[in-house]
């Protein structure tokens, strides 16, 4: 059987939009640095989502207009942000009490690898001369109720990021709930990985070929 790919899959914005559609009205959400940040722009009209940034702000708004940046009003990626009406500031221990205590509904993170069982590696390559830097990633995956991963399906070198076992050091074990890639949306379940949706023109077989572990399908 030929492996069919008639389309390049979703682009970054479309991926972000897919994530955004799955965030229910009224959710408290923490968005990781980079690709996850795009999600905020695609929350459907009529839904209210409150963004938490672990450096001490609940009710993070969009980026300020040029010239209105405040170096003391930043997000976890150290970029200038704004605060919505009804926002509040708090210290780091309180902020991570929200995270660790299970008060944040959804966290959207990037990934280096995700395993069949939902293990996540996204903080270190484990190479001897790399500078290890974990930030809040381990706290987020252990504390937030639902973890969404948004990532390209394969690495720049074409290697699968969705694998049987992570080879990079783990951020957390059995923590990922759903993976959004340029090719598909994949649920992590006790029975294995289930493809929930395919990008237009992308076949299940093509996704499988680019995945390091056996996939299941709902359909």
């Amino acid at each position: 059987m030929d492996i069919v790919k008639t389309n390049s899959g979703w682009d970054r914005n479309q991926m972000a939009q897919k994530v955004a559609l799955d965030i229910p009205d009224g959710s408290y959400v923490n968005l990781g640095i980079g690709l996850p940040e795009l999600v905020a722009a695609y929350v459907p009209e009529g839904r209210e989502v409150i963004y938490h940034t672990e450096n001490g702000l609940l009710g993070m708004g969009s980026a300020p207009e040029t010239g209105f940046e405040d170096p003391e009003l930043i997000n976890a990626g150290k970029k200038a942000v704004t605060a919505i009406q009804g926002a509040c500031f708090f210290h780091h221990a309180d902020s991570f009490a929200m995270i660790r205590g299970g008060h944040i509904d959804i966290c959207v993170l990037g990934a280096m690898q995700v395993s069949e069982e939902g293990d996540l590696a996204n903080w270190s390559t484990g190479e001897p001369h790399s500078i290890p830097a974990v930030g809040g990633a381990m706290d987020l995956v252990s504390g937030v109720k639902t973890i969404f991963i948004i990532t390209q399906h394969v690495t720049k070198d074409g290697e699968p990021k969705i694998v049987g076992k992570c080879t990079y050091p783990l951020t957390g074990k059995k923590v990922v709930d759903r993976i959004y890639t340029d090719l598909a949306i994949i649920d992590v379940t006790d029975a294995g990985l289930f493809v929930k949706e395919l990008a237009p023109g992308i076949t299940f077989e093509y996704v499988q070929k680019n995945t390091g572990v056996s996939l299941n399908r709902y359909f």
Partner: protein
Amino acid sequence: MINKIFQSAADAVEDISDGSVVMISGFGEAGSPIELIHALVDRGAKNLTVVSNNTGSGNVGLAALIENRQVGKMICSFPRTANSTVFPELYRKGEIELELVPQGTLAERIRAGGAGIPAFYTPTAVDTPLSEGKEVRIFNGIRYILESAIKADFALVKCKSADRLGNLIYNKTARNFGPVMCMAAKTCIVQAREIVEQGKIDPEAVVTPGIFVTRIVEIPHPAHESQLVLENRRYPWI
């Protein structure tokens, strides 16, 4: 769209059912959500475990809830009051269980419950009867005991002002256990003297961020417990 505002105390406590663990804010009457407690008396849920610093005064508020035989167990630091015989009488008859917890340990166990910390070590109560049966461990030559988090199904909390997102500020020493109880309960029900427009509470001065709050009821003129006690009132009102 988020809107946590409920129209009445009765609506707000409607799903508190038999056997629930309920945290109730307050240090004496300061910060005690008397209207929410009375709504819970009306609701009638039984066999509750109540976590609160005291056991109420007179025959109103928390004392009324106990007198109405809705509380199977109290977790508190100071169940003795000059002006209520409700708890002592039931306790002496063996009809209510008591878990006595030092006040700071109580506050920290509740905070831990809200902060995702299952257990912590503390120096408080080491070598006293309140550490009996608890694990002792030495850190840097000092003995500590292990204490576990307390979580609740519901918290009933009183504050000064709230907005529709659930951001809260309190009044003076009526703040006490409110903020940590909001954190530690699955459903946090708040009575506020006023509900203000979103953005009216200074974001630097918010004490309880809205994420911890589930429901808000506006009670502009809460009853003064001490006044009711002076007047020998009892709830349900006769």
